[in-house]
C-alpha cells in the first residue's frame, strides 16, 4: 500500500517470520532465534512509532525545532533488556536439556519420553503380574 508506511510491512514480515520459526522448527535453539526475531519486530514497531519526520534526537540544541518522541525509544531499552534476559534463560534451559536428554530436537525428546513412559508401564504391568502370581 502506501510507501509512507513501509516500516509496518517490515514489522509484519519480521513478526510472521518469527512466529513461523517458533511454530515450525523443532530445534530448540532455532525456536529461541524465532522468539528473538519476533521480539525485534515489536521493538522496531515502537522505535518507528516515535520517529517524527525531519526530527532529530531529543536533545535541546540551537537550530533544531523538531524532535523525535523519546518515550517509545526509552521503553524499548527496557524491552531489549527483557529480551536479552529471556534469551539467556532460554539458552541455559537448552544447555541443561542437552545434558539431560542428549538432544535438543523436540521430536527426539518426545520419543525419549515416550520410551521412558512405556518402560515404566511395562514395569508396572510386570509388577502387577508378579503380585497376582504371588
Amino acid at each position: 500500500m502506501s510507501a509512507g508506511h513501509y516500516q509496518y510491512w517490515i514489522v509484519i514480515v519480521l513478526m510472521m517470520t518469527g512466529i513461523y520459526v517458533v511454530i515450525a522448527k523443532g530445534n530448540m535453539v532455532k525456536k529461541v532465534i524465532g522468539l528473538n526475531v519476533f521480539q525485534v519486530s515489536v521493538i522496531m514497531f515502537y522505535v518507528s512509532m516515535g520517529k517524527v519526520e525531519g526530527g532529530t534526537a531529543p536533545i535541546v540544541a540551537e537550530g533544531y525545532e523538531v524532535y523525535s518522541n523519546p518515550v517509545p525509544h526509552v521503553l524499548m531499552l527496557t524491552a531489549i533488556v527483557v529480551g536479552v534476559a529471556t534469551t539467556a534463560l532460554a539458552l541455559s534451559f537448552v544447555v541443561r536439556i542437552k545434558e539431560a536428554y542428549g538432544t535438543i530436537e523436540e521430536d527426539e525428546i518426545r520419543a525419549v519420553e515416550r520410551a521412558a513412559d512405556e518402560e515404566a508401564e511395562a514395569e508396572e504391568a510386570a509388577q502387577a503380574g508378579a503380585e497376582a502370581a504371588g
Partner: protein
Amino acid sequence: MREHLPALQIVVPLLAAPVCVLLRGARPAWVLALSVTWAAALMSWDLLARVLAAGAPISYHVGGWAPPYGIELRVDAVNAFVLVIVTAISAVVMTAAPRSLEQEMPRERHYLFYAAYLLCMTGLLGMTITGDAFNVFVFLEISSLSSYALISMGRTRRALTSAYQYLVLGTLGGTFILLGIGLLYMATGSLNMANLYEILHERGEANRTVEAALAFIVLGTSIKLAVFPLHIWLPNAYTFAPAVVTAFLAATATKVAYYVLVRFVFGVFGVGFAFGQMHLDAVLMPLALIAMFVASTVAIFQRDVKRMLAYSSVAQIGYMVLGLSFASVTGLTGGIVHLFNHALMKSGLFLALAAVVLRAGSTHLDDLRGIGRRMPLTMGAFVLGGLSLIGVPLTAGFVSKWYLVLAALEGGLWPVAVMILLSSLLAVVYVWRVVEVAYFQDPPEGATKLERAPLGLLLPTWVLVGATVYFGVFTDQTAAVAARAARLLMGVAP
C-alpha cells in the same frame, strides 16, 4: 512511612531477592524470605483496609512525578483485594516451603529458590499495583522469567522441557501484550491506565488501532492466564514443577493474569467498547464453557493427581473468564470471588499433595491406594479442598458458583447456568476418583502407616483449607469486597 506503602510493597521483596543470594545459607535465606512475604502481606492488608475505609483509590507518584507523565501506583478496591490474596498465599506457601523443598532439591541450592520466589512475587505485585500500562509488561516479564526458573527446579528432567515450553509461550504472550500497549500508546499518546480510559472515552468512536490493541492485549493475557485453548503450557508446568512452586503459581500467577485482563478490558477499554462494540463476550464465553467441560473431562482421565489438579485449574479458569464475559456486576463479582476462592483451595490442595510427595514419594493414583488411612490429616485436607472445588455448600467454591449462576440467570442465559451445574458434576467425578483410591482401596501389602507430614507443611495446608471453609460459611466479607470491586470496574457508583 505509611504513605510509601504502595512502593514498599514492590521494593521490599525486590531488594530482598539479591540479599537472599548473598546470604547463601538455606536457613537465613528462608528466614529473610519468610519475613518479607509476611511483611508484604501486612502491607497489602493495610492498603486494603485504607482503600475500603476511604472509598477512594490511593495514588502514589513514583519519584514525585505527577501522572500521566510520571509512573503512578494506583491502589483501588480491585487490586488491593488481589494484593491481599497474592501476598497472603505467598506468605503461607513460603511458611511451608523448606520442609517440602528438602526432598526436591539439594539444600545448598535452596537460597536460589527463595531469591526466584521473591522476584516472582515482586513481579506479580508490581503487575497488580501499577497504574501504568508499560509497567505491567515489565513486571509481567519479571514474574514470568522467575517462574520459568522456579519450574525448572523440579526433580525430573521433564521440568526442564516444561519450563522451556512455558518460556516460549509466555514470551509470545508477553510480546503480544507489549504490542497491544504500543498500539494503545500510538492511538492516545498516554501510558497511564486511568488517563487512557479518559482519552478513549472522550473520543467515543474507536478506530482500528484501538481495536487491534484490544485484540493483542486480550490474546497476550489469555496465554498467561491459560484460557482454553491457550492452556497447553499449564498442565506440564504444574505437574513437573516442585510441589511448593505449583502451590504458589497455581494460586497467584494465573490470578494476577486474570486481574490484568479485567483491568485492561474494564479499566482501560471500558465495557461499552470491549463488549458493546467488539463483542468480547462472543469469544470468551464459548471458550470458558469449553474449558469447563473439556478440561474437567481430561482431568477425570489423569492417573497423576498433580496433573489432574492442573487440568482442573484450566477448568476453574474457565469459570473466572465466564464471570468476566457476562459483563455485569454480578458476573464480575462471581469472577473475582472465584479468583479468591480458587487461589485458596488450589494452593491448599497442592500443598496437601506436597505432603503426599514428601511421605509417599509419588502423586500417581497407583501409589495412593489406601493413603487416606496412612496419612489421615493430609488427605482430610485434600478432601475438604476437593469439596470446595466441586462447590459443595458451606465451602468457598459454592459461593463463587452461586454468583456465576445468578449472573447467568440475570442475563437470561439459563443454558449457561445449567452448564455451570453440569460441569460441577465432572468435578465430583475427578475428586471422587482420588477419594475412592485413597479411602476405599486397600493399601499395598506391607505398607505401614506413614510418618505424619511435618507440622510446618501440615499447618499451612490446613490454614488454607480452613480458610475455604471459613469463607464458605461467612460469605459476606469476600462477596462484599468483590461486589464493590465489580461495581468500580463496571463504572457503577458503589
